[in-house]
């Protein structure tokens, strides 16, 4: 019996891409339910999603990527889903990878499967600051006993157990700090190579300033996540 799965699509001002992503998911992963989290979008994202008849969580203010995902996870856990997949709404991810990630989760028994841009020879080039941060935090995860090559991927599949544990902790960015905490608590994390497309429309949530601030902010979150796991966490 296949697990009951839901894809969470956090969307902030993605009116130009959200319809394509939703249609792609309907076609590529018909067995996976969807929840679009319109994170205080000021453009026509909500109208697009409503016109598509898609289930959506309409956050009245922009609370940021991590908190939008958190709202989606709350919904998924309250409604008894076995697997949660997060996927970006900007069209950079291939909807066909959603099923691949879920299959990998079932096949390997991992708690989290990351759609990784760096695990294979396929190359992805982000901004320099983000690449450096990515490398740094990848090495940090190596110290936890398992190197995770793509700590900032927006495409992840997670078991309900992992989701519940994530919701118990501090929740801000939903990137490296979450993975480090899960790893320290004994959760199994796997990576599957994926290809990503360049953003074709809309604006990235990353700017030059946020690129510089990212390693510092995430570094602090990783440290607090590690302390949290050491003090309050129980081995799985």
């Amino acid at each position, binding site marked *: 019996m296949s697990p009951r799965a839901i894809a969470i699509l956090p969307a902030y001002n993605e009116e130009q891409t959200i319809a394509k992503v939703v249609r792609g998911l309907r076609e590529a992963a018909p067995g996976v339910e969807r929840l679009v989290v319109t994170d205080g979008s000021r453009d026509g994202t909500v109208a697009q999603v409503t016109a598509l008849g898609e289930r959506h*969580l309409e956050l009245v203010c922009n609370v940021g990527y991590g908190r939008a995902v*958190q709202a989606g996870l709350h919904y998924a856990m*309250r409604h008894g889903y076995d697997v949660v997949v997060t996927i970006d709404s900007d069209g950079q991810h291939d909807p066909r990878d959603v099923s691949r990630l879920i299959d990998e989760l079932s096949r390997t028994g991992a708690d989290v499967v990351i759609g990784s841009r760096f695990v294979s020879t396929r190359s992805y080039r982000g901004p320099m600051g983000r690449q450096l941060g990515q490398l740094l935090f990848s090495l940090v995860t190596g110290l936890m006993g398992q190197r995770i090559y793509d700590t900032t991927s927006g495409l992840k599949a997670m078991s309900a157990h992992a989701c519940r544990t994530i919701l118990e902790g501090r929740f801000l960015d939903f990137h490296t700090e979450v993975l480090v905490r899960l790893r320290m608590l004994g959760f199994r994390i796997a990576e599957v190579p994926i290809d990503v497309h360049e953003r074709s429309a809309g604006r990235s949530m990353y700017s030059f300033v946020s690129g510089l601030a990212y390693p510092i902010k995430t570094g602090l979150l990783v440290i607090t996540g590690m302390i949290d796991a050491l003090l309050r966490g129980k081995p799985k």
Partner: protein
Amino acid sequence: MTLQGIILIDFLALLFVAGVLFLLRSGRIYAGYAALWIGSTLVLATLVSIPPLLALVTTMVGAVFPVSALTLLAFVLTFLVLVLFSVKLTELHERQTELIQVLSLRALEESERRATLARDRSPSGAE
């Protein structure tokens, strides 16, 4: 510090306290914050008004001049107040985010509940 300086600082402190009390009376500042500001002002004003006490504090903090000790104390107080406000802002932000999430979750679940009820009541839903 000269008598003229002490009088001036005490006068400014009184003005500041009166200003905070006015804000408190008009409901534009919480009593807790008002107490914090008034308390800090009174501590500094007392130190300025009693030279032997200021001299003692100057020796205790390792400063050479009383004015340096006062500046240091003012800086520490301001720093603590700023940290306190950062904490309060974070708390407010957390509550706001939680509220936004809960509101949206309830709205979605309510619309789903209504849709289910409507589906169950419709003749085709009874199939």
